[in-house]
C-alpha cells in the first residue's frame, strides 16, 4: 500500500500527510480498502463525498430562507478565524484551525443577522458589508502572518482557493464525525426546521424564539462551511451549499425528500469531482463546483414538472412565479 502512496507522490497529485507513514493503521482502513481505488484516491473521494453530503444536507437552511449569499460571507469570514487560530497556537493544527474558522464564520453570520434586525439594513447590504470587512480583516491578518517569517505558515492561503491534495485520513475522520453531528441535528430538529422555514409567524406564535432557530441553523451552516472551505475554498464554497439544493428542489416539493436528495447530489458531485480532479491534476474545488452547477442547471431545464422545458411545453410558464410558493403551501396540506 505504501508503494502506491509513494508512486502517487511522484506523480505529484498528492502530498504526504502527517499520517502518511502508517496509512493502513487508520481507523477507516477497512472502508477505504473496500473501495476499488488506490488509497490516496479513496481518501480524497470519501473526503470530498462527505463534504458534498454535508453541504447538500445543510444548504436548504440557507437557500429556502433566501439566505444563499449568507454562505458566501460566512466562508469568507473563515479566513480571519483561521489566521487568529494560527496566531494563537503558532502551528497548523487542523482541528484548531477548523475551530477558529467555525467561530469566525458564526460571528460573521450573527453580525449579518444583527445588521438586518437591529441596524435595519437590507439583507444584501448587510451581507455585503460583513463580507467585505471580514475578508479584508482576514487578508490583513494573513499578510501579517506571511511577513512574520514563521516557517509553518505556508499553505494557510489554501483556504481561499481550497485543496484536496494533502487531505489525509485524519481529515476524513473529522469530516465523518461532523457529518454525524449534522445528520443527528437535522433528524432531531426536523419539525422545528420545517415550521421555521415555511411559517416563521406560526413558529413564533407557537412559543419558539426566533433567535433560537436562527442560532441553530446558523451554527449548522457554519459547520458545513467550515468543513467545505478547506476542500473547495472560501470563494467557491457558496456554490456547494446552493447548487445541490437547486437541483433537488426541481425534483421534489417535500422538505423530507429535499434534504436527503440534495445531500446525495452533493455527495455524488463531491466524490466525482474529487476523483476527476485527481486524475486530471486539476484543483478539486472548481471541478466539484462546475459538476454541481451543471447538475443544477440540467435540473432547472429538464426536470419533469418544474423544469423550464416541461413548463414551456405545458404553456404554463407565466404561472411560474406563483409556483415558487408551492413548497410553502406544502406545510398547510
Amino acid at each position, binding site marked *: 500500500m505504501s508503494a502506491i502512496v509513494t508512486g502517487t507522490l511522484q506523480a505529484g497529485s498528492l502530498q504526504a500527510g502527517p499520517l502518511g507513514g502508517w496509512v493502513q493503521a487508520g481507523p477507516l482502513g477497512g472502508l477505504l480498502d473496500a473501495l476499488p481505488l488506490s488509497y490516496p484516491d479513496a481518501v480524497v473521494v470519501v473526503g470530498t463525498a462527505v463534504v458534498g453530503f454535508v453541504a447538500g444536507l445543510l444548504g436548504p437552511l440557507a*437557500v429556502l430562507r*433566501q*439566505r*444563499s*449569499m449568507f454562505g*458566501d460571507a460566512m466562508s469568507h469570514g473563515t479566513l480571519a478565524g483561521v489566521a487568529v487560530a494560527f496566531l494563537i497556537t503558532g502551528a497548523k493544527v487542523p482541528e484548531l484551525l477548523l475551530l477558529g474558522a467555525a467561530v469566525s464564520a458564526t460571528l460573521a453570520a450573527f453580525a449579518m443577522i444583527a*445588521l438586518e434586525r*437591529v*441596524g*435595519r*439594513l*437590507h*439583507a*444584501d*447590504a448587510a*451581507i*455585503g*458589508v460583513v*463580507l*467585505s*470587512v471580514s*475578508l*479584508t*480583516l482576514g*487578508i*490583513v491578518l494573513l*499578510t*501579517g502572518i506571511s*511577513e512574520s517569517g514563521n516557517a509553518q505558515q505556508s499553505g494557510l*492561503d489554501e483556504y*481561499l*482557493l481550497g485543496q484536496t491534495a494533502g487531505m489525509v485520513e485524519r481529515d476524513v475522520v473529522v469530516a465523518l464525525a461532523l457529518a454525524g453531528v449534522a445528520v443527528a441535528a437535522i433528524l432531531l430538529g426536523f419539525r422545528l426546521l420545517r415550521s421555521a422555514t415555511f411559517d416563521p409567524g406560526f413558529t413564533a406564535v407557537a412559543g419558539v424564539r426566533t433567535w433560537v432557530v436562527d442560532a441553530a441553523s446558523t451554527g449548522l451552516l457554519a459547520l458545513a462551511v467550515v468543513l467545505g472551505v478547506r476542500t473547495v475554498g472560501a*470563494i*467557491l464554497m*457558496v*456554490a456547494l*451549499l*446552493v*447548487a445541490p*439544493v*437547486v437541483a433537488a*428542489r*426541481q425534483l421534489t416539493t417535500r422538505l423530507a425528500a429535499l434534504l436527503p436528495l440534495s445531500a446525495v447530489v452533493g455527495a455524488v458531485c463531491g466524490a466525482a469531482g474529487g476523483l476527476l480532479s485527481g486524475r486530471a491534476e*486539476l*484543483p478539486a*474545488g*472548481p*471541478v466539484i*463546483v*462546475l459538476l454541481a*452547477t451543471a447538475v*443544477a*442547471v440540467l435540473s*432547472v431545464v429538464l426536470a419533469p414538472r418544474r423544469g*423550464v422545458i416541461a413548463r414551456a411545453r405545458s404553456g404554463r*410558464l407565466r404561472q*411560474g*412565479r406563483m*409556483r*415558487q410558493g408551492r413548497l410553502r403551501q406544502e406545510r398547510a396540506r
Partner: protein
Amino acid sequence: MTPDDVMIIVIAGLLSTSCAVLGGFLVLRGQALLPDAVSHAVLPGIVLIFLLTGERASLWTVAGATAFGVLCVLGTDWLRRSGVVESDAALALVFPALFSLGILGISRFASGAHIDLDSAIYGDLTFAPLRTMSLFGADVPRSLVITAGATVAVVALVVTLWRPLQAASFDPAFAELAGLRGRLIGQVLLVAVAGLAVVAFDSVGAILVITFFVVPASTARLLTARLGPMLVVAAACGWVASIAGHGVAVSLDTSIPGTIGLTSGVLFVLALVLAPRRGLVARRRARP
C-alpha cells in the same frame, strides 16, 4: 509622504468615488452583492483573452472581462426570471461556476503565465505608481489614467441619466409608466458596474472592489435621507478610508487594500452607532 504615497491615495480615492456613486444605486435597488459576483465572474474573460492574444492588460482584456461580467448578470437574471430559483440563489449559482472556469483555465493552460491569482485577489495597489505609461510626453501611472477615466465616465453617466436612474431605483413601476425605461436603465447600470469592476479589479484587486461598492454607500445610507447627498457622502467616506487606511498600512507595514477596507468598515460601524437619526444611539433616545 512621498509622491508614490500620494499617488496610491489618489488612485484609491478616485476608484472609491466611482464605486460609491454606482454602489449607492445598487444598495438602494437591493443589488449590493452584484459587484462581488461580477468581480469573480470576470476571471474566465481575462484568462480567455490571455490565451487568445497573450496580453493580460489590454483593452481586449477589459472587453473580454466585461463580457463575462455581463454574462454573469444576464445568467442570474435568466435563472431568476425562469421563476424556479430565487435571485440570491441564482447569483450564488452563476458566479462560482464562472470563477471555477477561470481557475481551471489558469491551472490547465496558463500556469506558467503571469496571471497571478494572489495579485488579482489581494490587489497590487502598492506597486501601482511603478507601472507607468507615457501620456503627453510625461510618465504617468497606468492605474491613475485608467481610474481617472473610469471615474469621469461614471460621473458623466450618472449625471446624464440622473432622472431615470433615480426613478428606476425608488419606484420601478412609476419609471416604466413615465416612459423612463426602468428595465433598460437597470441594465445600463449593471453593464457600467461590470465595466468598472473590471477596471477596479485590474488596479486594486477584488477585495477593494467589493468593499468600495458596498461599504461607503451603506454608510452614507445611514447618514442621509436624499439620493444626491447620499452619493456625495459615500464618495467622501471612500476618500477618508483611502487616506486613513493608507496611513495605517504604512505605519503598521501591512496590506494597503486590507487596511483601506477595514477603515471603511470602521466608518460604517461609527455611522451605525452614531448617525443623527438612523443610528442606534439616536433611535434608542427617540424611544420613550
